[in-house]
């Protein structure tokens, strides 16, 4: 690099030359001199440290106590637990002064704002926060609580997010009609009133009594209904979530033939439900973390408490919590925020939309990250080999599953190297292939005016065009486009003498092979790598191909996914349960992956098929 810049400098005029050269040298030296990377807080998954684990347990206990006080409903307890911890770490040093509305000056901020006992004040306040009545999404319903002395109240909810009938039947109806029963004492006022309503009046299955505006806004934004009562310095929040959602459908991007077909949809709670449906175990933890500064989307971190390495869980939560960005509402975006090597082509986090796959990984000791509004679930840590696997591999009998696996590994090599090998052989190493074949290739190329490389790049580009166009085009003409594209590319290009027929085969096989890669990101990575391979092959022949292989392999070997090397269990060799490319029988997979360093290593006893050793109870041989 330095040399090249020197040469450039020589060509220029004399007076400029000196400056340029020194600049060039500086730049060159900068490039050549080894620079230490800026230290990053790297996470390495090691053995579980006993001491730290104890500390953590204590911490958890504290949190549990807090949550027990706060609320009894399970879900919110977990959510609050996360929040509590967050608060604890952030705000324990400097306790903020709690402000009342009367003290409020200047523009209203949500921080530490509390509900006022006066209904009017609350109303004004909410009108400012939600920009009522300009903001039409929020509905403020005034009513009077039916009791001996009717009390003014209002309910606030969001149109479209909250379920209409639930609000009517579960919130407004009991409050307006049914209260004032015989044992209601008239002197119930203030906070006690809220308690009373929560305990005896409102039907909602999740009812909270909240003091802070921060929490109220968040709940209302997520479909809750807030009820404010005159004279009560608390707000009653009823869970009335209910919006239009896509039903659970078939998996579109990871289709299999054998096994369950259901896929995640866009609702976080039904997604967690799908997982919990398969793992009926109280050790399955779901921790909710808010991501995105503006959108505050829920991200759920799911893992097995008794299996997953606590340090791994901690790291996952640390990374998600540390993401500060306006909008993180999609698992792909979150993936980019928390992955280890953003510039490497190969993905380090596995995304799947199949609950059965997530379940197997969670039971293996990995951690799943679900994001609300997204059907794709992230699995960490991920290994390179799991990117080439599908759940069907495990469901099928051993020989069939292995056939699929071998096929897919072959496809991976074809998808990355076939065009490169073709270019290298036809332009550099013609002696490598049989005479008949080279003569056939030569004959096919006889009419082609372009060099092989140009030909290959042209066809590859055209193929990518078909793929992309088929994806973007409206569904109705999508199929036609594929046929037209294939016809035009295949038949016409050959007849026009622009490309050789053999190349069509090469490109088609490469395309087919890249479609067999089950992971979408991985398929992308291989497509990108393929072009690099082809370019290198065109310039350097097989030397280029092998150099590219070298670079790819070394960079793969250097990559990590949440503290676990990407090529494990082969990169650093670890103990493995014969499930890398080929897999062993399901009953032989006795231990969880070594690299995860799980709390509970054994997956099944050494003899899991007990019937093989049961004495005296053998079935008849015939």
């Amino acid at each position, binding site marked *: *690099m330095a040399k090249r810049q020197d040469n450039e400098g020589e060509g220029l005029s004399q007076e400029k030359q000196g400056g340029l050269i020194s600049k060039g040298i500086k730049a060159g030296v900068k*490039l*050549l001199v080894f620079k230490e990377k800026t230290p990053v807080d790297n996470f390495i998954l090691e053995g579980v440290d006993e001491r730290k684990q104890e500390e953590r347990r204590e911490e958890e206990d504290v949190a549990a106590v807090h949550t027990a006080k706060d609320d009894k409903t399970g879900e919110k307890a977990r959510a609050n637990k996360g929040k509590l911890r967050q608060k604890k770490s952030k705000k324990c040093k400097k306790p903020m002064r709690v402000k009342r509305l009367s003290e409020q000056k200047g523009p209203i901020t949500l921080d530490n704002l509390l509900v006022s006992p006066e209904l009017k004040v609350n109303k004004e306040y909410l009108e400012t926060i939600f920009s009522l009545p300009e903001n039409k999404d929020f509905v403020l319903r005034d009513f009077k609580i039916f009791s001996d002395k009717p009390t003014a109240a209002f309910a606030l909810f969001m149109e479209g997010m909250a379920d209409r009938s639930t609000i009517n039947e579960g919130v407004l109806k009991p409050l307006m009609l049914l209260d004032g029963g015989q044992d209601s004492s008239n002197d119930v006022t203030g906070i006690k009133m809220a308690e009373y309503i929560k305990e005896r009046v409102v039907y909602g299955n999740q009812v909270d009594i909240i003091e802070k505006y921060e929490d109220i806004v968040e709940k209302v934004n997520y479909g809750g209904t807030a009820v404010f009562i005159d004279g009560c310095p608390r707000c009653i929040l009823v869970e009335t979530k209910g919006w239009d959602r896509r039903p659970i459908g078939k998996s579109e991007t990871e289709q299999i033939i054998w096994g369950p077909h259901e896929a995640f949809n866009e609702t976080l709670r039904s997604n967690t439900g799908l997982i919990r449906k398969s793992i009926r175990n109280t050790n399955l933890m779901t921790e909710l973390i808010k991501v995105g500064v503006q959108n505050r989307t829920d991200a759920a971190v799911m893992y097995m408490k008794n299996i997953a390495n606590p340090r791994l869980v901690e790291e996952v939560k640390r990374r998600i919590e540390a993401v500060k960005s306006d909008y993180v509402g999609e698992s792909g975006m979150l993936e980019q925020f928390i992955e280890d090597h953003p510039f490497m082509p190969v993905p380090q986090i596995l995304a799947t939309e199949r609950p059965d796959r997530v379940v197997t990984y969670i039971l293996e000791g990995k951690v799943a990250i679900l994001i609300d509004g997204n059907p794709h679930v992230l699995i960490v840590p991920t290994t390179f080999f799991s990117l080439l696997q599908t759940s069907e591999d495990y469901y099928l009998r051993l020989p069939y599953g292995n056939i699929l696996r071998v096929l897919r590994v072959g496809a991976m090599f074809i998808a990355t190297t076939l065009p490169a090998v073709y270019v290298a052989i*036809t*332009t*550099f190493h*013609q*002696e490598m292939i049989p*005479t*008949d074949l*080279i*003569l*056939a*290739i*030569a*004959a*096919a*190329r*006889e009419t*082609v005016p372009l*060099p*092989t490389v140009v030909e290959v790049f042209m066809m590859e580009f055209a193929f990518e065009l078909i793929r992309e166009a088929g994806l973007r085009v409206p569904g109705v003409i999508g199929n036609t486009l594929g046929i037209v594209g294939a016809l035009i590319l295949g038949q016409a290009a050959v007849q026009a003498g622009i490309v050789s027929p053999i190349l069509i085969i090469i490109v088609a096989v490469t395309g087919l092979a890249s479609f067999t890669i089950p992971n979408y990101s991985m398929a992308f990575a291989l497509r990108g790598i393929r072009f690099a391979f082809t370019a*290198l092959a*065109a*310039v*350097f*022949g097989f*030397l*280029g191909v092998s*150099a590219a292989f070298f*670079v790819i392999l070394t960079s793969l070997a250097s990559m990590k996914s949440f503290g676990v090397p990407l090529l494990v269990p082969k990169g650093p060799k670890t103990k493995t349960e014969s499930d890398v490319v080929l897999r062993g029988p399901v009953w032989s997979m006795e231990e969880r992956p070594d690299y995860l360093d799980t709390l509970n290593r054994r997956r099944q006893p050494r003899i899991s098929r007990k019937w093989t050793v049961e004495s005296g109870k053998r079935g008849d041989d015939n």
Partner: protein
Amino acid sequence: MLFVCLFSILITAGCWGARETDEMGYVLSLGIDQGVENVIQVTFQIAIPQSPEGGGGGGGGDKENNIVVSVEAASLFGALQLANSFVSRELTLIHNRAVIVSEEIAREGINKYLEPLVRSREIRRNTFFLVTRGMAKEFVESNQPLLERNAARDFELLLAGRKVVGFIPNSIINDIHRSVNDYGREAIVALVGVNNDKKGEEKQEDYQTMVKSETALFPNEVPREGGNKIEAIGLAVFHGDRLKGYLNGLETSYYQMITGDFRSAIYSFPDPEKPDGHLIVVRVTKGRNPQFKVVFEEGKVVPSLEVTLALEGEILSIQSGLEYEKGSKEKELEEYLARYLASGANDVIKKTQNELACDIFGLGDKLRKYFWTFQEWKDYNWLEKYPSSEVNVKVNLIIRRTGLSS
């Protein structure tokens, strides 16, 4: 940083020899003759690439698929360069399948033509090296394969035929180059030639002679009509790097039996009980590798060797209809066949000892282990002593299959 390093490594070490397939002229075979105006005349057979669908525009299937050019030059590669003065494509030997030298060249010494072939990285060492009894140019020109699309493939299949016939020996550059410079063996080269549809002049009178001469032929002697004009049968015996003599097809099959290269061949034996007009046709295959027994007798410098061949037979035809496969008759037949083959093999050995004085069987290699140093072995000069050694061939033949009819 990393990329700069890698790139410079690639640039300095990269192979900058990108060549498109349609810029190359692939030489399929080349022939070497004595030159008239210069030292040698080299004939190249260059492939014309043809698409598999058989010529879309032409419609005719019988398009020429190769051209033959001859150049006179001082050396092989000189000729290759000179040929590019009128051949538009860069000639390359990377797909060359056979090198054919004429009898004249072979008598003069093949070493100086083998050496560049072995040294060149374009030529594979398993390229066929062949001797033709006429002009190499004529042979290359005559080789217009009918069944195959290119001449290289034709050679490959023709010479691969040695797996089922006995009269074509293995003849690749690597082996020949090694044996030419070996102290324990002499080189042999497969013999090829052009047959101009020459039929036998007159029918031979004797039935026995006809049977015996079934494969005892040289190129240009095969009684046939039609087909590709070239044929491969028999071998050329070299003394050092000079042509010494020939073995015909039948002798070649015995030669291969003794060296162990033999795979299988079909022999016609006169019926021992009805010798006139009746044959027993047997496919003979190699059972095991031949066993060599070396005996250095007291006081004698030259050892005596005993070669035991283990062969197997499959009866294809017994024209007389006698039931040889039944009972003790089978044993008798086996012994008869073994005797017959042994005498044939011994005749070939006698011929190489007396007439040719060349140890083409590589018997010397079996003696090497009796010498402590290479120098001793070299000084022993086995190739000179071979004619005076005593070699005896024994044959063990077992009939494995008798065919379906009884």
